């Protein structure tokens, strides 16, 4: 027999000790911090100015002067990769924020109300899921014009049903518990119970889903930018850099290699972080992907 334990009952020190023994968490945390640091540093310093075109230095192979080489305008790829991190992080952060901010209340509300409200919300969810997200994102960005803001909205919209579904499933498992009954007996209404008891108990679940969606949003943003529908030049973005690289694969493969690796490492870091958090806080319900 195992005793059920809520997160709040564990000490912070205990959680931290577990975290540092979890290799997925440590690796994921380190990578994520590294990418974040790279984005922050890019505001103050980059090896070269990414807006300055030096045609004389165009498509140079990686060297000591340009670690990642230069692109077709002579811009330093390392500097562009650093600045590109900003765009990826900003788009993904806001898109996941939209998804959580709207999806979680919807899912929690559906679980609290049940019946017709629940049924209707879940059918709308099914409807959104029937549209391949990338296709719809392309339609949205093509309709309202390409750009980082429309990319955020397009990716954000498809995060809403994901968080609604996760929040609902999590909340449904919490509602039959004894402490909810106790809260009811104390005279709290369903909104109070949701905010004070349900949401804190599904926070882990949402955090883990958040890291997954963050990683997916970075991939989606890169895809949209690659198609020319995301961030517009001169703002460097990893997807856009890959688009520029495509026709120059023969002469300058490094133009494709480094921004791509930046995407892979970032997504890998976030996925490891999510796996790690899921393991540490709830070893029983390991994330299945």
């Amino acid at each position, binding site marked *: 027999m195992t005793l059920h334990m809520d997160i709040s009952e564990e000490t912070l020190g205990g959680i931290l000790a577990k975290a540092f023994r979890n290799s997925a968490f440590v690796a994921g945390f380190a990578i994520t911090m590294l990418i974040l640091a790279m984005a922050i540093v890019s505001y103050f310093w980059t090896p070269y100015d990414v807006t300055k075109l030096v045609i004389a230095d165009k498509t140079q192979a990686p060297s000591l002067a340009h670690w990642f080489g230069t692109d077709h305008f002579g811009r330093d790829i390392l500097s562009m990769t650093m600045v590109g991190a900003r765009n990826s992080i900003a788009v993904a952060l806001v898109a996941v924020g939209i998804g959580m901010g709207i999806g979680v209340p919807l899912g929690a509300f559906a679980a609290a109300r049940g019946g017709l409200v629940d049924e209707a919300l879940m059918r709308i969810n099914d409807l959104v899921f*029937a549209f391949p997200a990338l296709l719809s994102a392309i339609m949205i960005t093509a*309709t309202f014009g390409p750009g980082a803001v429309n990319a955020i909205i397009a990716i954000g919209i498809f995060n809403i049903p994901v968080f609604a579904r996760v929040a609902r499933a999590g909340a449904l498992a919490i509602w039959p518990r004894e402490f909810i009954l106790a809260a009811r007996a104390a005279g709290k209404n369903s909104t109070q119970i949701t905010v004070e008891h349900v949401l804190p108990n599904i926070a882990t679940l949402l955090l883990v889903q958040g890291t997954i969606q963050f990683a997916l949003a970075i991939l989606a943003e890169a895809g949209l930018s690659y*198609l020319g529908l995301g961030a517009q030049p001169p703002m460097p973005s990893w997807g856009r850099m890959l688009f520029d690289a495509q026709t120059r694969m023969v002469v300058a493969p490094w133009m494709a290699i480094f921004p791509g690796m930046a995407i892979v490492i970032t997504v890998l870091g976030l996925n490891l972080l999510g796996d790690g958090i899921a393991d540490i806080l709830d070893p029983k319900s390991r994330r*299945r992907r």
Partner: protein
Amino acid sequence: MTAYLLKRLATAIATLVLASMVVFAVLEVLPGDPARLMLGMNAGADQVELLRDQMGLNAPLPWRYLHWAGGLLSLDFGRSYTYSVPVLDLVRERLAVSLPLALIALALSTIIAIPVGLFSAGRRGQAGDTLAMGVAQLGVAIPNFWFALMLIYVFAVWLRLVPAGGFPGWSAGVWPALKSLLLPAVALALPQAAILARVTRSALVEVLNEDYIRTARAKGLPYRAVLWRHALRNAMIPVLTILGLQFAFLLAGTIIIENVFYLPGLGRLVFQAITQRDLIVVESVVMLLVAAVIAVNLIVDLSYAIVDPRLRSRQ
């Protein structure tokens, strides 16, 4: 079971109808007048108005929706604004590229993922499992279009084994056509295979902890037989669910991958149609893709009953 079947079918149809309304409504707000686009900037306002009438663009909204939806049902998708050919011909031609591409990718992903999942689950915690799942973790993180660029560099630019892009058409022979679909299919399949391998492994690990697995081992069945005959079959439900979802991913993925490889497929058609404001093509292709996703999810749900006899008898 019959009641479940009917209910499932009814929700699928309702979703499809709602989806068609959404597609129609969204494209209504799309800026740009198709009649103006067809005639060019020099055409007079009365000319444009005449063409709008001919194209039925001036009819009331509900009527136009019913006309369009009715057309879809009878496979009359209308004529493309930019290509001036029936959309159905266009779709049929492009589907001959995209459907084989998606199916090869799906097959590749399954052929790779299930054995890797079995391998890892059979050795859970050991070095082989850690290595395989590490590679899978990496595979999940790789964007398919970047992977495609790397494949082009290695296999087309460097080794010159396959063409870097383009499609000779099936009339050029099955092998040349297949050859040009090979890299795109691999690029689409590998990231999906990574996801599927992880799902297969965790589903198997869960099943391997069950009592009946111990019983099967206790009665003397070799481990391999237990894994294949008892565990895999019981782990199929999550695997099938992900396979169904992946079909939607693969369909959408063709949009980017076909652009990387300059393949004249459905994905490239819809992407170009969106940028050219060829609404009727966009509407038709999007509906086709949505219908495919809904149909596949329905098939997946129904196949649960085939895989798991317990679900068949349950009311």
